[in-house]
């Protein structure tokens, strides 16, 4: 093929170009900075003994992929909701606080904490998260309310509901099982949240492989009217996307609670909804719905976390981090916008044309 090179360049990575390029740029930035200051500690990964005496991996890169876990899990679910409904759920942070509170409530009943009970607690968290997700989903799918407006209700009252579940207290839970979920399982050097993300990603992959949810969701998101006339029940598809997000919320809430060993309904996953939406956007997914790639959103979550950790590593104070984050994100989003893509495409086109002309001239 004549334009093989150009095609690979333009279409090879496709949607994933922006998130992958962003993460590479951030790492490159750290590398250059490290080389200049002769301090490459950002990239060092060590095997150290933690407080519990386990050998575990440690380093900035590890804390990036570990710290992004909740965000990555939420971004997976948010991608589906975005694709099917053309809107976003802004109540995921509040819903995760509810799920986390439920998890702690069940774990705290009775005296001992067994594995069975933790599993039960997680299922309870799933149940309540899915219940609220179904509430959101019904408003969106059945009553056709704008997703952001529909989920504003739970966004507003969610943390109050979380407060009621544990009677206003912020109980702590300490058990090897809980810390096993939140940090490390003895003998495994990889942080458990990271493993959970991988498992979730595999589950999504399997679900997409063994069902046609992906095709139906995209059809509903791109052209709801045509989807309906092809027999797709779009109400159900939209509702389903919310329920799946509900499961993701429960997982994220459980990770968050287990990480800290306590539930603080006010601060658990605070402001995570905007980061989640951003992860979806950075992942190259249209926020207006339609075609999507879960993998893009996952990388998007890591981009955000890499950015945060990079800023912290540069000793930017936590109050300033948000401002710097905003600047970088503006740049990323503008680069990923269709306008810039078109410019870029034209530029590349011209470049290759010139080369071709040169080649022709050379041949003459």
């Amino acid at each position, binding site marked *: 093929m004549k334009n093989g090179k150009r095609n690979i360049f333009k279409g090879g990575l496709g949607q994933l170009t922006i998130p992958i390029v962003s993460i590479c740029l951030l790492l490159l930035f750290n590398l250059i900075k490290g080389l200049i200051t002769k301090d490459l500690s950002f990239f060092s990964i060590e095997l150290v003994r933690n407080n519990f005496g386990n050998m575990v991996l440690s380093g900035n890169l590890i804390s990036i992929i570990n710290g992004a876990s909740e965000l990555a899990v939420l971004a997976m679910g948010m991608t589906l909701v975005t694709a099917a409904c053309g809107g976003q759920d802004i109540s995921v942070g509040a819903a995760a606080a509810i799920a986390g509170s439920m998890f702690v409530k069940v774990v705290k009943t009775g005296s001992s904490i067994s594995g069975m009970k933790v599993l039960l607690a997680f299922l309870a968290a799933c149940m309540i998260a899915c219940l609220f997700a179904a509430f959101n989903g019904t408003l969106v799918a059945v009553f056709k309310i704008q997703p952001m407006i529909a989920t504003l209700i739970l966004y507003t009252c969610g943390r109050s509901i979380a407060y009621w579940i544990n009677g206003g207290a912020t109980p702590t839970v300490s058990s090897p099982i809980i810390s096993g979920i939140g940090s490390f399982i003895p003998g495994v050097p990889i942080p458990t949240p990271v493993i959970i993300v991988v498992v979730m990603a595999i589950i999504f992959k399997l679900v997409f492989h063994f069902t046609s949810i992906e*095709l139906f969701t*995209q059809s509903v998101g791109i052209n709801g009217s045509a989807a309906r006339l092809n*027999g797709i029940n779009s109400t159900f598809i939209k509702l389903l996307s919310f329920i799946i997000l509900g499961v993701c919320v429960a997982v994220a809430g459980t990770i968050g609670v287990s990480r800290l060993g306590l539930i603080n309904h006010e601060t658990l996953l605070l402001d995570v909804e905007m980061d989640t939406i951003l992860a979806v956007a950075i992942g190259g997914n249209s926020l207006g719905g339609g075609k999507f790639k879960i993998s893009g959103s996952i990388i998007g979550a890591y981009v955000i976390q890499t950015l945060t950790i990079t800023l912290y590593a540069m000793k930017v104070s936590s109050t300033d981090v948000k401002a710097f984050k905003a600047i970088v994100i503006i740049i990323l989003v503008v680069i990923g916008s269709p306008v810039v893509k078109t410019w870029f495409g034209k530029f590349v086109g011209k470049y290759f044309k010139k080369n071709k002309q040169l080649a022709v001239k050379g041949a003459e």
Partner: protein
Amino acid sequence: MQENVLLQMRQIEKSFPGVRALGGVDFTLRKGEIHALMGENGAGKSTLIKILTGVYHMDSGEVRVEGEKVSIHSPQDAQNKGISTVYQEITLCPNITVAENMFIGREKGIWINHKEREKRADEILGKLGIPARAKQQLGSCSLAVQQMVAIARAVDMQCKVLILDEPTSSLDDKEVKMLFDLMRDLKSRGVGIIFVTHFLEQVYEVSDRITVLRNGELVGEYLTEELPQVELVSKMIGKELEELSSMGEGDDKNAEAGEIFYEAEGLSSSETYPFNFNIRKGEVNGFTGLLGSGRSESVRAIFGADKVGGGSVKIKGKPVKITKPIDAMKNGIGYLAEDRKRDGIIAELSVRENIILALQVMNGMFKPISRSEAEAFADEYIKVLNIKTASRETPVGSLSGGNQQKVILARWLLTHPDYLILDEPTRGIDVGTKLEIQKLVLKLAEEGVSVTFISSEVEEMLRTCSRLIVMRDKHIVGELKGSDLNQTQVMKTIAGGEA
């Protein structure tokens, strides 16, 4: 003669990835002429128009307006240079007044003199004889009048070149006549009009000159009176007309078909009055009538596309309940919707995904068609229906209209329906594809599939259907078959008592 030339495009070339859309096309428009731009889908008409209006940028070539070389960067730029377009779909805002629509985005500064504006709007409307008032909400006008308002807006912007892209496809005969009167009026004022349409008769009624494109190449420029219609068609499709004439009219292909497949009694939906209808195995019948007569609404009721009101439906003699599309699909009914863009294609998904969609829905969510199977299906139908696409993974939205239609046809054929409803399958697509679709319908009937066919072109229906159900004002007013199946009789029945 040179002085007369308003617009000259020379050696226009444009390529898209993998496709050469235009290869050195010339086009000349003179002052005060109506110039029809003809060609099949994919011939390059829209590309040429889009280059002229600044939507696309040509790879090479030259555009001169009144002898002066220009480069057009954007639609706004084109308007400033006196080139205005009125598209097939109305691109004005229905919920504001006619005057506001005519002046929106054209005023300098932020102060608006409503009185002055309305006065001016009424002046222009009056001058052009457009039956609309400045203060009227645009949405309350008929489609034709809305289109005319769009033209009035263009004219008021001092346009020299007016491009009308399929302006008549959603108008009825009376409205078309109004539009043509307006076009002739503009022509006498020295405006050059480029007229893009699929309706051959209209070209002969109104145009002075015809330029024909085929596969991105210029076939030629002709004076309308010197080019017989048959020759025009053969120039457009590039093959001799044997095929066209070989399709006899009105022979009873499938009149005595098998037992009744589908039968509805008193069927109604939110959009129709109760009606009776049936179709036999292997029969091709059709609903005909003017636009808005209820023909589309009737077939939508059969498919369960609108909220079903009542009535009883039997399939092969057994009572069934069809309240939503999936019910109809499970009973072996397929439905190709009238509005391809809105109700048919999933534009951003690939040809493959679009083809397997209906079958996948019928299989259910938990039995996905495997990738390799889907690819095989897609390849098969791309070949069988001769779908022109770069690959099976190309987004369907980037295909030409006729090929999009074939993809949707493939989607339904893949479900192996017993009964296929085709609502305007040939609208806005080229002559060659039209013939292919008509042939396909007859072939399906031979294989025992029942087909209900709707088309605005009566000729087409006479060629394919053995029975026509005529509708007027949402009621069935007649049923024609056998010797009654001819143009005059159909027209008479459609027109009813007034004729």
